[in-house]
């Protein structure tokens, strides 16, 4: 079958065959988009409140933080790794950012020396903290070669502890207006968190699909040894993806804390799992490496958002929602494995 494979399949292809093949290809490639479409239709039939502008904007705003984290987590999963620390890094970054933006005149100013800075200082400080945590993850994974699960599990605990330590366990409230504007403001009716998600999704999509960095992370995830032999500096690119994931988690932290007007060390608990869920539903493969896309992950996040929203609108209890989410992530992985088994 060696030489003839290509010609044979071409020759034996009747038109009916090819249309069936076309559909199965379409489903395999864009299946998740169709599922999303189906969910939209079902949701709008179940609840008249679903298909309103307010509700739709609400859904996207709700997923914007998970979405931001998931963009970075997708890249980590593409390299064959995992990031369990994003929720904790979010918590740490948001309290640092908030400390820089606390009103210096209030009664309980945590760090008067750095309080009262304009918003961009907070953003830079928060993101730097996230990237520092990410670079520690990256160093541990790429250089000491301990499993990503363990490395980021360590950061999961340490970053949360650092956040608690930094604030002595208390929230940092009374923040400057320009900081709060990030989470609460809008431009022409479009909430800023959504805007940030859209911009970062586009940037990340381009980064992953059209730059050397992107090509290399897919290569590393696809076959690390082959990537190394092809002259790729595996250590460098593997660490960099964790730095980028840390940056996005920090950005998520800035959005969530500015939305509630308070930097709290306990924010983001469990977000890492929602982000991983979004990436996996969107097709990123925890078993294969080198597989996963930003459009897929965004749809994955939207699916979670629509699901939560529909269950809310139809008065399903929050407890049930958790059970359903659990079933969905396991189901997505089963589907993913069957897809790859079929092709091998």
């Amino acid at each position: 079958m060696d030489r003839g494979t290509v010609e044979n399949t071409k020759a034996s292809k009747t038109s009916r065959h090819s249309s069936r093949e076309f559909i199965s290809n379409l489903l395999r490639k864009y299946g998740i988009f169709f599922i999303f479409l189906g969910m939209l239709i079902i949701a709008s039939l179940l609840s008249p409140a679903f298909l309103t502008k307010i509700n739709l904007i609400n859904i996207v705003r709700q997923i914007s933080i998970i979405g931001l984290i998931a963009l970075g987590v997708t890249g980590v999963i593409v390299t064959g790794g995992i990031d369990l620390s994003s929720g904790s890094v979010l918590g740490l970054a948001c309290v640092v950012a908030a400390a820089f933006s606390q009103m210096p005149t209030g009664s309980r100013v945590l760090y008067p020396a750095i309080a009262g800075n304009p918003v961009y200082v907070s953003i830079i400080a928060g993101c730097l903290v996230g990237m520092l945590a990410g670079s520690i993850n990256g160093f541990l994974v790429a250089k000491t070669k301990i499993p990503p699960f363990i490395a980021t599990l360590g950061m999961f605990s340490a970053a949360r502890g650092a956040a608690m330590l930094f604030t002595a366990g208390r929230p940092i409230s009374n923040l400057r207006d320009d900081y709060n504007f990030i989470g609460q403001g809008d431009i022409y009716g479009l909430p800023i968190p959504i805007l940030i998600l859209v911009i970062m999704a586009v940037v990340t999509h381009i980064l992953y699909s059209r730059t050397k960095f992107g090509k290399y992370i897919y290569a590393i995830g696809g076959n690390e040894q082959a990537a190394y032999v092809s002259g790729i500096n595996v250590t460098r690119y593997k660490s960099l993806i964790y730095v980028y994931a840390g940056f996005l988690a920090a950005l998520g932290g800035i959005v969530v804390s500015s939305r509630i007007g308070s930097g709290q060390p306990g924010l983001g608990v469990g977000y890492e799992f929602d982000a991983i869920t979004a990436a996996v539903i969107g097709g990123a493969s925890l078993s294969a490496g080198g597989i996963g896309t930003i459009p897929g992950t965004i749809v994955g996040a939207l699916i979670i958002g629509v699901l939560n929203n529909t269950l809310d609108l139809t008065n399903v209890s929050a407890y049930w929602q958790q059970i359903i989410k659990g079933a969905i992530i396991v189901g997505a992985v089963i589907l993913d494995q069957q897809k790859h088994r079929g092709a091998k």
Partner: protein
Amino acid sequence: MADEYLLTLSNICKQFPGVRALDNVQLKVRKGTVHGLMGENGAGKSTLMKCLIGIYTPDSGTIIFKDEKISVPNTHYALSKGISMIHQELNPIPQMSIAENIFLGRETRTWYGLVDMKKLNQRTKELLDRLNIKLDPNTRMAELSIANTQLIEIAKAVSYDSDLIVMDEPTSAITEAEVRTLFKIIRSLKEQGRSIIYITHKMDEVFAITDEITVFRDGMYISTDPTNTLTRNLLIQKMVGRELTEMFHKEPAKIGETVLEVRGLTGRKFKNVSFEVKRGEIFGVAGLMGAGRTELLEAVFGVTRLDSGEVFIDGKKHDIRSPADAIRLGLALLTEDRKLTGLFINAMVRDNMAIANMKSYLRGIFVDFRKITTDCEKMIDQLRIKTPSLKQIIKFLSGGNQQKVLISRWLLTEPGILILDEPTRGIDVGAKAEVHRLMTELTRQGKTIIMISSELPEILGMSDRIMVMHEGDKIGELSRAEATQEKILRLATGMSLAAV
């Protein structure tokens, strides 16, 4: 007379995609004898044994064991019938003790259902004593040397009380003294009326221990003879005796100055190797599996680090610390195992081809896909790669076309020196000929090729000069004119050339 055969394999065929691994082979093993199975790499010895113990299912043929026609669906069944095997690759469970490893899956239990460790250790002790292996059953496998691990593997195969034990290269990891222990074990097994199939590359061993020798070549049965009627030369002739039927597209290229020279390279699996290669040359590297050829050239390419030695490129000394360094210096390495270290199996043809040369395809920070496409299309034309499109996922291509994509990957980096490790393994005859033609063309363009190959005809047909390695040493170098299959095989098995 028929009942004196313990095992009769006849008309066994096994086809893998693109290769006929076994073509109507037979093997008859007498009761209470040691039967040597010989042949070059890829002759089909291991494949046949895997068919026998149920790892592969043969496409056709019959297996008669103890006068009963059997088919073996899995290794468990083989064991229950009385056939066990010592595998070439060792697979112990390092955290468990010797006793636990040997009786894995056959633990004796106490009446209340727990594993009876005392009994287990006692049985192991008896077994080890019988085999004269001086190790404590309680030792964890992780603490054992490779040689001792192999001895335990042998003990395990014996512990099944099988009538037939297959030993596939059992001495690859053990020293002279332990080989003697092994031979003692084998002789006592023989006395108990058990039979052994002994696969090895080592001439000394095969003449020391076997009663009969069967030779395979290219997946075909050649002969079975009593060992005492054979000589080494006769045996080697049988192993390589084929005519050079394959045509090799070899045209002499202009041989120029030395482009690569290595001195005293020593690493994990090779020691003190020196050689030089010249512009326009095809430098063949021959040897048996495990001779250290791949490890040597991977170290030259920076995949692993050298313990000592110097590498000169165009007369200048370089310290190559990673493949990235090697690529910058104009080297390329087509790795031996396409799937393991070559392909990005879930990625498209285009990305597989362009990955090593990504730096040349950048416009600012963005990848210039138009330029990649132009270059890749050129390669597809030039190497006649059959793919529906550049965006095809590479796993759907045939082995030959996958190999051509990998060669393209390296040609795109415009290397001066190409290291090709088994460039035609597992690809069909047509693609093979095209790869050979391409190699010739590349040398005519002034490129240099270092080719590792386990196929003697390929080595002889394509190389200008041949280096032969044996257990990590460079054991000889032959010019194209003086090289013959016999000479290479003698060197590769550690014999001297004097007697030829």
